[in-house]
């Protein structure tokens, strides 16, 4: 298991690319990076799940905490590339409606980051 996160650099926006499995053992990595980006602060942050193949309830909780912290800083959060189990688990947890979601990174870049 591994989760690799790369924070894109710009004045007001960040793209966090998540790679691997976000589970009870790894979610802290995502949370720490996302919190740091929110605290800068950033106006918009895109969570790219295109390369995430596994997400459990710890990952869901992590997404919720990111949304809660983002709200405090008026940071807008969106997600792209959700598919398979991560998408299903977020649906089952009734969390998907809290997130602006885009099928692809291109769509998110055009419709979320560039808007």
């Amino acid at each position, binding site marked *: 298991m591994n989760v690799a996160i790369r924070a894109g650099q710009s004045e007001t926006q960040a793209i966090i690319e998540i790679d691997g499995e976000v589970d*009870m053992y790894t979610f802290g990595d995502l949370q720490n990076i996302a919190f740091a980006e929110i605290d800068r602060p950033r106006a918009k942050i895109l969570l790219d799940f295109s390369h995430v193949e*596994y997400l459990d*309830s710890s990952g869901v*909780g992590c997404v919720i905490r990111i949304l809660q912290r983002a709200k405090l800083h008026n940071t807008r959060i969106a997600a792209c590339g959700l598919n398979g189990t991560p998408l299903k688990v977020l649906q*089952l947890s009734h969390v998907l409606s*809290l997130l602006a979601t885009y099928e692809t990174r291109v769509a998110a870049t055009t419709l979320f980051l560039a808007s």
Partner: protein
Amino acid sequence: MLVVRKLIVDDLNPLFDAQGMKYVEYPSDFSRIRQYAAEILATCPEPFREGNLLEQQLSEIIKNGIKHGNKGDSAKKIKVWYDLRKRARFIVEDEGSGFQRLEEWNDFFAKRQTALANNDFETFLTLANYRGPDSDDNDGGNSLIAALEYWNGGMIFSGKRNKVGVVRWFSGGSGI
């Protein structure tokens, strides 16, 4: 009308009938939860796996038993009965004192779902995490929320509340 699912306690529920089920038990090793689930599902019919969704859901139940039930005490066992014929069915029992705040969790979930149904996302976010007296900062009750949806044939707690029976049916069956 908003319908909110609930966790149910029923010692006599047929989901606790372990006759014909396979049995394994494991020490409460938090670092091996996903390994335990993978071992149990080693011979699982492919259609039941739904990618790795079944493994994920089984891992959550085992995690709850190890973390909240046995509190990570390696001397305490997690016991799993399973049957993967025609559907995915499990009974998972820990050696803890049971989920005594089950009704409180049901109340939390009802409020959370009401906020969601009303598109009241501000309230929903404030209710997004369930915190019991033994919860840590990483607990949110999300595993139970997803489980109530996923286990479409039922999710029942025993009277002592340290044992849960679940079943998921699949529209195509396994062919077994």
